[in-house]
């Protein structure tokens, strides 16, 4: 895989991620039904719910993990990709990339949690958790950022045209 292909894939995935980020946050991620109370929850709605329940530390964590982090990932990736080929701020870009990569390991935890909830939270008429399309979009956003980060190697920051693997 050439550097150009990687760059293109990364760019396309980031754009797709940005596009998907909108419905991922607008559409409900899941529907929680507790004793007949049907509650379609968006990611932001979930945070709101948690905050309203007084669980503001949890709300903060979820807010960070599910909204801020994906947003920052997209923003950072966009920034790195925009500066691709230019000599500016190369060490910073590399540092940001490393952080992104590290955080990326945990980025699917929301989706994982949703999957667990949907699987476990089937208590019949009393309570049920139903995954909604928003979750799919959310997962797609995360996948896009993950793969974008994966395709774009940090060597490309320093060597925009080179393919580290093929070069060696």
């Amino acid at each position, binding site marked *: 895989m050439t550097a150009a292909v990687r760059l293109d894939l990364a760019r396309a*995935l980031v754009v797709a991620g940005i*596009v998907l980020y909108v419905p991922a946050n607008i559409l409900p991620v899941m529907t929680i039904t507790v004793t007949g109370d049907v509650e379609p929850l968006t990611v932001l709605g979930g945070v709101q719910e948690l905050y309203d329940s007084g669980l503001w530390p949890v709300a903060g964590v979820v807010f960070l993990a599910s909204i801020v982090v994906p947003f920052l990932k997209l923003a950072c990736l966009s920034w790195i990709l925009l500066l691709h080929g230019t000599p500016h701020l190369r060490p910073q870009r590399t540092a940001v990339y490393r952080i992104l990569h590290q955080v990326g390991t945990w980025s699917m935890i929301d989706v994982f949690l949703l999957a667990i909830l949907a699987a476990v939270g089937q208590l019949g008429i009393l309570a049920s958790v139903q995954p909604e399309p928003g979750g799919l979009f959310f997962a797609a956003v995360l996948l896009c950022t993950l793969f974008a980060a994966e395709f774009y190697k940090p060597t490309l920051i320093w060597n925009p045209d080179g393919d580290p693997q093929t070069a060696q």
Partner: protein
Amino acid sequence: MTENSSAQVPPSDHGRVVKARRFRVSLAWLFPVLAAAATGWLFWTHWKERGPEIEIEFPDAPGIQAGKTALFYRGVDSGKVTEVKLDPKLGHVIVSVQLKAFAAELAREHTDFWIDQPEISLQQMTGLDAIIQGNSIQARLGHGPFATQFKGLAGPPLLELDKPALVFTLHADKAPFVARGTPVLHHGVQVGSVRDKGLEKDGRVWLRVVVDAEHAHAVLDTSRFWFVPAASLHLSGRGASIDLPSLAALVDGGIAFDSFVPGGNPVPDHAELPLAPNEAAARADGPEIQITFDTGEGVTAGETRICWLGQPVGLVKTVHLDPATASVEATVQLDSPFASLARAGSIFTLVRPSISLQGVSGLETIVTGPYIACKPALDGAAATQFAGRTVTDEEWNKSIAERDGLRIVLTAPELPTIERGAPVYHRGLVVGTVLEKFLGANGQPSLRVVVRAEYRDALRANSRFWRVPATSVAAGPGVLDVRVSGLLGLLQGGIAFDVFGENGSPAQEAATFPLFDSETLASAVSVPVRIAFADGHGLLAGRTQLRYLGVPVGVVEDVQTKDSQVTVVARLQTGFEFLRRAGSAFTLVKPEVSLQGVSGLETLVSGVYIDCQPGTGPSFAENFTGRASTDTALLERKGFPIHVTTAQTAIRPGALVTYRETRVGEVVGKTLAPDGSHVILDVLIDEEQRGLVRQNSVFWDASAIDGSLGFIKFRIHTPLLIAAEGRLAFSNPPRGSAAPAERGATFELQRPPRF
């Protein structure tokens, strides 16, 4: 590398490179295009699903939440509440609902919306899903142009879906236990239900009933509706049965209807029909009549039935107490087929349980409750006002008869056991009643007695009254007569009267009669006869009878003791006046037991009596001298009297006189000669044997038995063996009889001859 080389390619090569780049770029950029397409599709479908947004105005909106509460039509989620707010005047709740696209048709002008709340009653549970899901908004599709503003219903509509059905209104005085959902049954099949109930201005209850279209034909204008109790307990002579009309009605009961007359037309929609409290009331749809009773005991509005031939034909609708006349007026509604029972002259009798000595009646009403028995007149104009009876026909007739009857007063020295209500008999018929027992002005116990109108002719001025004892036992030889004067008489006895002799003039109202202790006393109507006895042993006033040839002909009325003798005042019955003639003989007959025989044995049981022998005197006498006799046969015998004299003898009156060991007469008297020198035996020889007594007849004392055993002769006196009186024997000399003895001849008692 490629990038680098492309930058250095000559301009002639430029186009190819660009083409290659463009191809590569478009492949990678498929991701964002796909993402955009997916997003776009999602939003587009979402937008496509949106129907019109409507606003519904509710008086209140419990449990309605924006973003959560759904609108259901036919159970399908058809929209979502987006906003709940109050109108500016806080008078209503305005609920905005975002309909789904497929439910856009619901936004029609006449569509009904209501809030479905869980309703849990014993009758049924509705809106159970609302408990779990929360309240929801329900819709029923209407017609008309599209609209966005609606006025919601306060409660569920009669028909939740626009199914065709028959809707009508029932009116009842009260409707306990009827609620929304109460089943409407026809022949036990639920054909509809009560959808709503409310009060009218006049306080009556209306019930809106919806009957399924498929059963609407069962509702006719002749149908009668009534409440079915949840469970009813029937008690009858056949036992008890519990009637549970249906499980659904078990708790609340239901409403049933049926037509009791053939024919009828279907009722129109929104008809107004009456609702009866029970089936009997529903059947009673004929004319109303008023029956007035002097007591309303047991008459219950809505329960008491009218029965004809034992079958119910109507029902008491209302019971009205009239203070002015102190009577109870029952308004009765007859079943229409039996309207003709209400004719002038029909008799309505309140039947209640009655247990008396006369009998037991209306026993079934102990269980079933009193009812009104109808005895219709055969013809007569239709009538609506009747005077009801509260007693049986028999008693009614009796009371009517007694009202018009003849009232008289009976007096007696004492009046045991006879009480108010005791019967008055005339020749075995009950003709009257004792009305009252009171102490008369002169301190005499008195009875006021009424003789019924139809028997008043039987009561004459010379009628004689006597007490009929509860039980009487008359005993005579071979006869034991136990008389029980009916069940009633058994306990309290009664009074009887009759005329002995010629009928007198009719008795007058309020006349006073004496009351005799017994029929014998009452029937002895002659002038009193006074008979003097030396010994009054066994004589009882009012009890001892006078008999002629063994037949009772009178009774001793009084026994007086005067001048060391007993005087009996007796009266004779009609037809036996001849016994009062001068010369009549009265003999006191007592039981006698001796070796000669037993006599007057019947008097052991019946007591002594006075035997009468009519005299032949030309006129009636009042005073007689009675005789005490041991043997009435002796008195009656016509004999041939002779006398036998002896110095002394053990022979006493009653001794037999024998001739050749054959009885031919009797010693009837034993007297001492005036100078005391000898004893004279009066002997009566049977008339047919008188020829045996000759002038030379030899009489001897046969009380002793002479016998010889070989050469030893002995003599045994036999009084103890044979007869206390002894025995007198006679014979004639074997050779040549003398002429027959004369009446009253005297013979000397001699030694027994040797044969």
